[in-house]
């Protein structure tokens, strides 16, 4: 039976009185009990398609042509009342970001009960149903969790609570919009596996929307590749991955990072270190609100060395202390004990002003491309800011340098006058890299620089980083939760878990013969086994 039947669907967004098409002439069907993955880069119209199916387009979204029939009901141009009957009971949605998907002022159980009550269940039967769905969603200790508020749950548990809400309406179809892109790999794997098993067990259809071909290939019965609002290609995962017909699909497959270390430095002499952290510990005070009232040992005798001209990666699950390590290495956070030596200078215990000259040696690139640039600054101003801070050059020579830097990060020089809102995520990250390069530092610390970008952009940025390293002789300290990304760029790696370094060595050695169980778990969690095996 066909559950979703989309024919010639056109969706556009009205902006400044013009309709910009987002989806054009899309044909798509989803059978009952089928798992379909919609894959594409950002702006390819995959989320728009999903929103159009359940009538959740933003106010400026318009369905301009075509039809979308869900469970026998036409949703294109349908009234709010018709759509409301579909939502929850026929189509369940798992939103993208578990951090904001739940109401922070209501207990988790209450929010699931809301969905249960919509099915007409009342009275004493509701709490029992709530617990049943929480359990189905794989939440351990459901009685406790139902009584907690969202902020008391980890990201993974929140995502499971959202899955429970979607399940609670007993839908025929679940749409999962990038369900795990905000979670780290191990949690992502557990949740996706669980969700996949669940829908197969209960015969629910599942539409996974993702930018990651690897995630899709592992779980879907059928993959639909979209680009610029059009369907590029569809077929079963094996065919799409191993024998794609379209060049675009081939590019997607090629861009998927695989766990093949690019650099093998096992037999090479280790260059002298540019940054050495020796037995660095960090304890957050018990009353520190950000860490909860526990007196938290964030780092426990962490030693890390970054060789000159090479990339050293710090990997681990979220909360393992890798970002704290990086912030201490940069002097943004103070270590409780231990020593940090940057290019021969000890930085622990230095005041901010004493640290300032060292800023010219080490720079930082942030994770979130949206918040790392001042929205009021033009690209040119952002890039030249470190030069202004250190009073280097005059106005004209700074402009000259800004052009040169834009050239190095492969952006057109016409972008100097652009504001950050006019750039895409990948372009913003390039600007952030250009800014970090402005002072000609020896070492750049990269805090998850590609985790917010989709696969194709991610590949470009990683390539850019490698090229810059070769051209300028840079050293990188690269923080990431994604081993596949690390394999692409890093020479050496330290695996961290619960504030300790559990394993370190050349990437080629650590990734091929991991000794620590933590490393093995991280490696197993990497999506795309099917892609890698097929390729």
């Amino acid at each position, binding site marked *: 039976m066909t559950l979703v039947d989309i024919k010639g669907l056109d969706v556009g967004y009205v902006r400044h009185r013009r309709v910009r098409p987002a989806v054009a002439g899309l044909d798509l069907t989803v059978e009952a009990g089928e798992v379909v993955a919609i894959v594409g880069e950002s702006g390819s119209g995959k989320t728009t398609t999903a929103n159009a199916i359940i009538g959740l387009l933003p106010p400026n979204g318009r369905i301009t042509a075509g039809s979308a029939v869900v469970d026998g009901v036409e949703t294109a141009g349908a009234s709010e009342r018709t759509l409301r009957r579909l939502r929850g009971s026929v189509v369940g949605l798992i939103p993208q970001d578990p951090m904001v998907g739940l109401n922070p002022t209501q207990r988790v159980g209450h929010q699931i009960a809301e969905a249960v009550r919509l099915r007409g269940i009342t009275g004493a039967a509701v709490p029992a149903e709530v617990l049943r769905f929480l359990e189905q969603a794989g939440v351990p200790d459901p009685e406790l969790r139902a009584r907690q508020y969202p902020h008391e749950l980890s990201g993974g548990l929140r995502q499971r609570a959202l899955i429970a809400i979607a399940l609670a309406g007993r839908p025929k179809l679940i749409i999962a919009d990038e369900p795990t892109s905000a979670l*780290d790999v191990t949690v992502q794997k557990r949740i996706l596996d669980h969700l996949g098993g669940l829908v197969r067990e209960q015969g629910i259809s599942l539409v996974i929307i993702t930018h990651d071909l690897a995630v899709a290939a592992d779980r879907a019965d059928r993959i639909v590749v979209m680009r610029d609002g059009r369907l590029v290609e569809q077929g079963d995962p094996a065919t799409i991955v191993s024998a794609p017909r379209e060049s675009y699909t081939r590019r997607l497959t090629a861009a998927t990072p695989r766990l093949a270390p690019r650099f093998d430095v096992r037999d090479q002499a280790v260059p002298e270190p540019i940054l050495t952290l020796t037995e660095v510990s960090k304890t957050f005070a018990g009353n520190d609100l950000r860490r909860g009232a526990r007196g938290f040992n964030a780092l426990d005798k962490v030693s890390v060395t970054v060789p000159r001209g090479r990339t050293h990666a710090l990997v681990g699950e*979220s909360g393992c202390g890798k970002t704290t390590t990086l912030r201490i290495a940069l002097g*943004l956070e103070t270590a409780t004990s231990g020593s940090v030596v940057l290019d021969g200078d000890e930085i622990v215990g230095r005041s901010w002003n004493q640290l300032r000259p060292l800023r010219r040696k080490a*720079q930082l690139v942030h*994770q979130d491309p949206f918040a790392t640039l*001042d929205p009021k600054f033009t690209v040119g101003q952002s890039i030249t800011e470190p030069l202004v801070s250190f009073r280097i050059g005059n106005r004209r020579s700074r402009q000259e340098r800004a052009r040169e830097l834009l050239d190095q990060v492969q952006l057109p020089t016409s972008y100097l*006058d652009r504001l950050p809102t006019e750039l895409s995520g990948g372009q913003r990250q390039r600007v952030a890299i250009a800014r970090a390069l402005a*002072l000609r530092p020896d070492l750049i610390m990269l805090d998850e620089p590609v985790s917010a970008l989709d696969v194709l952009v991610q590949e470009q940025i990683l390539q850019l980083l490698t090229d810059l390293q070769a051209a300028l002789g840079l050293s990188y300290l690269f923080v990431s939760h994604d081993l596949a990304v690390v394999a692409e760029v890093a020479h050496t790696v330290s695996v961290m878990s619960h504030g300790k370094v559990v394993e370190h060595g050349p990437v080629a050695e650590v990734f091929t013969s991991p000794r620590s169980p933590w490393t093995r778990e991280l490696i197993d969690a990497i999506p795309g086994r099917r892609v890698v095996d097929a390729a």
Partner: protein
Amino acid sequence: MTTAVADLVTEAPLPAEEAGGRRANLIANLVQLARKPVFLLSVLYVLFVVVSAFWPRLFTSQDPYETNPAAVAQAPSAAHLFGTDIYGRDLWSRVLHGSPLTIKATLIALAIALVAGLGLGIVSGFFGGLVDAVLMRGIDVLLAIPGLLLALSIVTALGYGTVPVAVAVGVAIVPGFARTTRAEVLRVKTLPYVEAARAGGASWTRVLLRHILPNSWGPVAVLAVLDAGVAIIAIASLSFLGFGAAPPEAEWGTLIADGRNYLVTSWWLSLLPGLFVALLVLGLNHISKTLQELTR
């Protein structure tokens, strides 16, 4: 420390060939504003009142002080737009001549509130800790006293005049500015671009002036327009209560107060000046609301 990435990149970049940058952005915003008729009307009205406050002769040829026993308490007509008062003076001309004190005092009050409020808010938001606690308790004390009572006591102490009224009203609206600024500074202070600037070697002064202040400014500007309305009402209230200009000087509050004894027989004496002031405040509110929507 988390790997939580708020969102994947979803918005499309501006095509390379399209004009971008600050100027294009400004033009786009202005075009958007120009498409709102009520907003345009409000702006024109506010401009008209401000201009008429400084050059009332542009809009009326009649003398606001010339009594005319033959034309006492006449209803609005073509000759007398707002009618005449009980001494036969032209009300329209009196309303226009009555605005300078209010408008000037409002502008000074806003300047006081902006400078003091921004300063207090930035200092307490930026330094935090003890400084923040002390300053904010001071603000709390100010908030606890009703604004009009505070203004009344200040005017009683300083006497009447443009500057004392401006000080009285300005001090009463400082807390709002300080609070709003502090909240914005607290928000902006933790954003990665501030940290990026610090990591780039920028001094705190530079970060404060170039990053935190410009990015905290939006909501404060909206509040300033909104509080212009509040200040006008407060000043009119002061003169309504008798803390205004001495007769025969015209003043919005005094005009409304003088007319209230004749509400049944000559309704225009109170209602038309009242309407004039009410429209001005409404216009300012609408402008501030539109700007708020725009900054969102």
